[in-house]
């Protein structure tokens, strides 16, 4: 961990903003509603000044913070430890101490063909990748047109899309099931990708519009004067400048697909189209031998988190912003 706080200071510019302002329009007017942003920036170094003399309060905060840390970590520790047990070890060993015998048999079970979990994992990769491609592409192109405000059509469309932010997915599960049946995309990854993309697109468009809006009109006008068409403006101006938000939207969409449970539950059926969370659930309800093979389930859950963990470590800032996208949902 570096010394920097996990989140970017709210007032601080993001990496993307810095890149934009240093290469393209240093000093250009930025988005209007920002007086508080600067205030935050100044506020940070003095943040803790009030409690300087009161170390009892800080010690109390440390103790309570540590208690919550234990609450967060104890089930995760249990899960990781249990994943390194065989089923017989699981039934006999102490669940919390690592010394009572460990093995990687559960992990090798996952990667062998028996459970199908590895296949589910690959399905999840396709599912997430497809959703990312659709959501990121469509939202960027749409945001470009919405920000340009070339016609009434874009304004009306944007309002309609914003309305979708308020619709809970559970209210439309039954029609989604019926519609995918009628369109013959029920029980296919393709249909799953389309429906999931639709459920995420409103937030993605809003995030992208908010970012693309920051590109100043002067740049569009300059390109238009040079005779560039709309396609060229998109390809040479919007796409290069909007890359940071495309990254954030991709993480948002990828998480939305990778961790989705209810849409795969409703829209797929056969084993060949099962994605990882659903596959794990299926295994957890299938008893064999000594009952449900808990260590294999635990290993599967760890497996499902690992890719996200690596992403989180590598791209912490974008990742937190991608998670933040769910606030708009």
């Amino acid at each position: 961990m570096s010394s920097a706080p996990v989140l970017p200071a709210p007032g601080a510019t993001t990496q993307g903003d810095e890149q934009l302002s240093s290469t393209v329009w240093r000093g250009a007017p930025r988005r209007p509603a920002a007086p508080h942003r600067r205030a935050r920036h100044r506020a940070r170094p003095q943040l803790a000044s009030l409690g300087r003399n009161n170390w009892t309060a800080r010690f109390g905060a440390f103790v309570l913070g540590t208690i919550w840390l234990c609450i967060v970590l104890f089930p995760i520790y249990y899960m990781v430890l249990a994943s390194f047990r065989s089923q017989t070890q699981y039934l006999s060993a102490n669940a919390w101490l690592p010394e009572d015998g460990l093995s990687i048999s559960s992990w090798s079970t996952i990667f062998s063909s028996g459970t199908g979990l590895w296949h589910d994992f690959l399905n999840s990769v396709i599912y997430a990748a497809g959703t990312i491609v659709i959501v990121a592409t469509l939202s960027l192109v749409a945001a470009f047109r919405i920000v340009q405000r070339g016609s009434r059509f874009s304004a009306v469309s944007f309002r309609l899309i914003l309305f979708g932010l308020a619709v809970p997915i559970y209210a439309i599960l039954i029609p989604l099931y019926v519609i995918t049946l009628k369109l013959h995309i029920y029980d296919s990854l393709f249909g799953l990708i389309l429906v999931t993309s639709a459920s995420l697109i409103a937030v993605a468009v809003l995030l992208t519009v908010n970012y693309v809006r920051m590109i100043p009109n002067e740049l569009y006008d300059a390109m238009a004067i040079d005779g560039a068409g709309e396609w060229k403006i998109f390809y040479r101006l919007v796409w290069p400048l909007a890359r940071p938000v495309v990254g954030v939207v991709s993480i948002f969409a990828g998480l939305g697909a990778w961790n989705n449970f209810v849409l795969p539950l409703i829209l797929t059926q056969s084993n060949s189209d099962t994605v990882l969370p659903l596959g794990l659930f299926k295994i957890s309800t299938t008893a064999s031998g000594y009952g449900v093979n808990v260590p294999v389930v635990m290993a599967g859950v760890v497996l499902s988190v690992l890719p996200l963990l690596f992403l989180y470590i590598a791209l912490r800032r974008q990742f937190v912003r991608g998670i933040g996208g769910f606030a708009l949902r």
Partner: protein
Amino acid sequence: MTASSAVLAGGPVTRPAVSRPVRQQRFRADIAGISPTLVLYGVFIVVPMLVALFISFTRWNVVGSLQWAGFANWSHFFSDPVAHHSLLVTLELAGLSWLIQTPLAMALGIFIAGTQRYRALYASLYLLPLLMSTAGLALMWQGVLEPTFGGLASLASSLHMSFLDQNYLGSTSITFFVIVALITWQFVPFHMLIYQAGRRAIPAELYDAAKVDGASIRQAFRHVTLPQLRYTIVTSSTLIIVGSLTYFDIIYILTLGGPGDTTRVLAMDMYNVGFMQTTFGYASVLAVILGLIGIIVAVGLVRMTGFGTMQSTQEGMF
């Protein structure tokens, strides 16, 4: 929400008058750029909303033919004790979630807004639950809570703490609260992030002034932090309440609404009636009510406080 879209779109900007061919070209580009999104959104979000409303006036089990039922399904809802109980459980879950998550998330958010290095490390670990899928999280806790070989049962026997030995997921008295606890474990990190951003947005001058006036830490919290966080509280509360109206995954995996009907929320009831009993007409009534509650609560809270405040709170976070 419509009132705010002018704000969202960046406010009025005067553009130079353009000739007719250019305008036509822009219109064509708009169609080409936006219609893929609109089609996807229309087919899988807008049309399903209308279809849900339509099916709620029919009798249908997908396989057989569709029969018009008039208001029969709707009047059934008003005399259905099962649905009423589900509605009650849903509201209890939302209320209790709000009551527990709000103070916890606020305290943790203020904690990780501090500048000490160890707090940054803690914060990055606090976020781990956000990486897990709800299904994965539920299965992990199933392992911990399993009554014979699970983590807590094992702890109970080795430490001789028999109060830990409970039937966590099969008890009519405590399972509801276990579900609330798991939901708290899952969602507090998220709201903690919102409160962290809110706390960092408070100007230090306010605390300096409080200090000059001789305020204690408690007084500073009461008279500076709490009032300054009011929009943050509204944003987070809205998200907690709207989100908890649609809890489904955890309950589906861990209890299926049981034991008895103690954890059967409206979404679970809808799933039972629709996908288990294949009475899609009545299930659609429940779905429409679920959607209406969500939309009314979301729009109501947003109207009350203005979308702009919510927007700025979230900008602080991103």
